[in-house]
């Protein structure tokens, strides 16, 4: 039914639940798993290039560590894992575009994550992905 499951992972409590749910689902259905994380909040309107570079390095380190932990969980489960990506930019847009690129059948994400201070004003990542995704979306609470 779902050949390829894409997990949107940001290390938050709910995305960890989404990861475990995806692994269980993939085991039951014989699906493959892909992982995606999106670096948001790369310092906009900065005064200094170095400020942007340092912040980017911090985010790279953070998300690489998060993805390493997630891959360990997937590896231990024995599920087929095909790729992990760290993207940069607007979170919902990046997830949707990536889902289209890799042609996944299901996106799994936590109901709440690191949406940041603008979520209340501009809508959460979950709202936007569930409305515009090219495939089914499973939201884990």
């Amino acid at each position, binding site marked *: 039914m779902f050949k390829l499951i894409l997990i949107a992972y940001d290390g938050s409590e709910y995305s960890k639940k989404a990861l475990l749910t995806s692994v269980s689902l993939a085991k039951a259905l014989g699906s493959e798993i892909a992982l995606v994380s999106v670096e948001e909040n790369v310092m906009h309107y900065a005064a200094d*290039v170095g400020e942007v570079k340092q912040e980017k390095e911090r985010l790279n380190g953070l998300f690489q560590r998060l993805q390493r932990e997630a891959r360990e969980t997937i590896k231990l489960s024995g599920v087929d894992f095909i790729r992990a990506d760290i993207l940069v930019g607007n979170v919902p847009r990046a997830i949707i575009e990536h889902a289209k690129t890799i042609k996944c059948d299901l996106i799994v994400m936590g109901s709440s994550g690191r949406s940041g201070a603008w979520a209340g004003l501009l809508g959460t990542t979950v709202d936007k992905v569930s409305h515009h995704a090219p495939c089914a979306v499973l939201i884990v609470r």
Partner: protein
Amino acid sequence: MDNIWLPARIWMTLALAASLISIRLGISVALIEILVGVIGGNFLNLRTMPWIDFLAGFGAVLLTFLAGAEIEPSAFRRNLKKSLSIGLLSFLVPFIAAGFFAYFVMGWDLKASEIAGIALSTTSVAVVYAVMIESKLNETNLGKLILAACFVTDLGTVLALGIIFAKFDWWMLIFALVTGFSLWLVPKSLRWVASRWGSRVSEPGIKFIMLGLFLLGWLATTARSEAVLPAYLIGLGAAGSFTSDRALLTRIRTMAFAVFTPFYFIRAGMYISLAALVLSFGWIMVLLCVKVGTKYLGVFPLAKVYKMNVREGHYTTLLMSTGLTFGSISALFGLTNHYIDQFQYTVLVTVVIGSALIPTIIAQSFFKPRPLALDEKVIMTESVADVEDGNKE
């Protein structure tokens, strides 16, 4: 003796608040510090003092030094002719046109119009860089060309700031000679200092750079020039040395952003009058259009000459229209030296901040170049590497 601890506490409270707000919102601390300064100056009766002026002034010097030090010499040399021509016209056309507009249309006097021309000619390398890394354009030839051109534009800005208002006497000659000598000496001396005294707790490398900036700053102000000019030039000269020793640059940046630049940006915001902003909103919008329009006059034709497609031409021009640090430094220089008044300062800084926001939003929304094949290849490469790492683990 006046108790300086109370104002110090107030200013550092504002700086801390700005830092925390910037982390929460994902917006640069510089912009938030300016906004906090606006609140401080308009509602909290925030006032400056000589020691705050010094910290703020050195903050501006460090910012320009750090800006110069971030240039990639190899990328600049590779795109030398294109970046020089685009950068030069990106500075000259807005400088002349915006200056003329301020003089003939807005009725500002000559000195104020020159400040307007300088402030509105700038390009923000940092704003452009942050926009580019989201789509990895900073790794493409187009991206490196735009970034190199931005450095040239800012060089034009600091040269104009340092020369137009200077007094051409013996001090100016001494300043020029010492700066020229320092440019030759800086790469060698930095390498020697790093090899002799690198990584010591007492940070002799940082003190050495600060000594140079203080010396050149003193000479610059004695010659009625501006301390940011030699700071930017020394930064450019030192850029090659920092390629192999990023740690020293990082520590200088930490010191600058923790102690000095908050005073600069809060002070810059403090002088913005909300009443003047409301009254002059129309002129602000017009000047913003002048800035972007004159950048189009200077940059867009060159983009066509260098065979960029239409989308890339618009993207390049809009990014070259951004400004923040150097624009605010130019305006504050004008205010501090009484070339412009608070009303004119409010207009210019608001236009500068607007130019950091609006052109980037338009460029990203409508004209982002589509190197899709490159993007996909980069993502795939990372994915394969990650999967291989996973398999080895």
